[in-house]
């Protein structure tokens, strides 16, 4: 395999893991836009999506139906989390709310450990093809599923926000909650919708990536960190910014791991971003003012 084929392989690995980071980042954005909360339980949604899919699949349900159930349950759970943890203290300082989401993240992991233990679990690949050759590089077909699903989610999200009435109501509440409520939008409900949506997206991402990377009770926090970084790099307010942020993080990680040393994969993108953040305070792609609160 030539060096170019290897580079191509790293690139595709990077894009597929980066698209998961991007979906996590979108989850952060959705919740942040109406509640101003950085929700560190976002990674647990992906964990639940993956774990529940494996549980239903092991019970004998068809793969697609298992994933659908997992996504719906996680989405409902996201709304439940909002109702029980965030909603009662929605007027508290933001930092208090963020720590409460940390508490939720830790509690969910605890429950998952109690029920499912620490074992790694896996789903079968979505297509039987296995691997595909592209210009000499071997490509895992599941990576195509991951990238395709992410792209689809981003497009659906974009259309939802731009062209549907609930989506517009959602955006209105995020721009000006008081104004939106005066127009008859039930802004109180928007927080629950945001959590449900973010949880559903996270769960789907967690399920799609499971055949490729396995899942376990403890993957949530790591994914949340990566998603948080992607969202901040992207500027926390733009779908396209966060997608580019997540992909950049994934690609830099893959190249760092492949070309330098796998132990340094987490560090290389961070060092680059630390330098860049010093020049662009609003993230790499977002509005420079967005970093200010």
């Amino acid at each position, binding site marked *: 395999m030539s060096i170019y084929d290897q580079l191509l392989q790293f690139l595709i690995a990077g894009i597929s893991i980066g698209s998961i980071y991007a979906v996590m980042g979108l989850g952060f954005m959705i919740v942040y836009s109406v509640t101003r909360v950085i929700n560190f339980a976002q990674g647990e949604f992906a964990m639940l999506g993956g774990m529940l899919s494996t549980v239903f699949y092991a019970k004998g349900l068809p793969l697609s139906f298992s994933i659908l159930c997992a996504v719906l349950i996680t989405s409902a759970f996201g709304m439940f989390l909002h109702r029980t943890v965030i909603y009662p203290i929605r007027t508290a300082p933001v930092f208090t709310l963020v720590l409460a989401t940390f508490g939720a993240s830790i509690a969910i992991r605890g429950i998952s*450990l109690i029920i499912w233990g620490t074992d790694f679990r896996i789903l079968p690949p979505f297509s039987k093809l296995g691997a595909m050759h592209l210009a000499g590089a071997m490509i895992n077909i599941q990576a195509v599923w991951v990238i395709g699903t992410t792209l689809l989610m981003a497009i659906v999200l974009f259309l939802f926000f731009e062209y549907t009435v609930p989506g517009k109501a959602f955006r209105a509440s995020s721009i000006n909650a008081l104004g939106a409520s005066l127009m008859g939008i039930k802004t109180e409900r928007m927080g629950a919708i945001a959590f449900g949506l973010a949880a559903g997206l996270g769960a789907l991402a967690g399920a799609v990536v499971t055949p490729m990377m396995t899942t376990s009770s403890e993957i949530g926090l790591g994914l949340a960190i990566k998603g948080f970084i992607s969202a901040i790099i992207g500027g926390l307010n733009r779908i396209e910014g966060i997608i580019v942020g997540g992909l950049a993080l994934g690609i830099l990680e893959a190249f760092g791991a492949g070309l330098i040393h796998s132990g340094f994969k987490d560090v290389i993108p961070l060092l680059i971003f630390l330098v860049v953040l010093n020049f662009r305070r609003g993230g790499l792609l977002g509005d420079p003012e967005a970093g200010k609160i």
Partner: protein
Amino acid sequence: MENVKRTRYASLALFMIIVIVIPFVVKSPYLITIGIFIGLYALISLGLSLLMGYAGQVSMGQSAFYGIGAYVSAILTMKCGVNPWLAMILAALFSTFMAGLLGMVVLRLEGHLLAVATLALCIVFYTIFAQWKSMTGGVDGMPGIPKLSIGGFTLTRDVHYYYLIWAFLTVILIFSFNVVDSRVGRALRSIHHFQGGSEMAAKSLGISPMKYKIQVFMLSAAYAGIAGSLYVHWLSLVTPSSFGFLTSIYPLIIVSLGGQGSLWGAIIGAAVFFIVAEAFRALVPILKPGTSGEYEILAWGLMIILVMQFLPRGLVSIPDILRGKGKTKG
């Protein structure tokens, strides 16, 4: 002010009595190690409390300085044969120095970007500890780090370290009270809006917010560095897993649990944080045999949620709440 001072000395005396008496009452060696962890995390949280409560800066990277203190101490004593006490001083100084350097870059950021940047410090240093095998021993770490000794008497037992760590904590607590009352403390309060200050107004009076932010960041790193050094000399072992992401998050939780802007809060928060978890660890197997650490994790999570919901100003606000209720009744 006199009254405040008198209450403070009384609290300190009570605090010291409790700390001294505990090992006579609690005989279980395991509980003494919990006491050690409470002391170490209280030390890190005290620094973070100054940074958050007085300078208004969040740090998700305190584990980096805790780790620097630990590894500098370990490397100096193991590879260079330096006296452990000297190593501890050098470890604290190096940790402070690194915080000064990194603070100049990181503290220019605000809000979420500051959180990400400090989180990056945590991850970067964790990777250095785990990957620089020739220096740090990699993932397996370094065993056999020498114990501390005082005038020919080697501290070997856990209870020795319990007293040593809490003695350090007491001295640093008193020092921190003085910092808060000093020129630096007043300058910080003028910057931080939670304390009724304004960064703009402070700037116009010739106070440089950046300078004070970096100074407090360095101080918090010094505390964490000392804690790290004490930790490795007690355990005689250092591994990177002690300095991961959760090691950065626990002090954040402890400060919020105890109460931001209160130095006692850091210590009370650390004590409650560990004691509740231990209570769960002890009780759950009695009720449901065959279980282990999972319930402890669940307990931590639920505790954080409940405290944020019902005591957003932390445990130190309980007396105020009780007093407030008493007043309305009277």
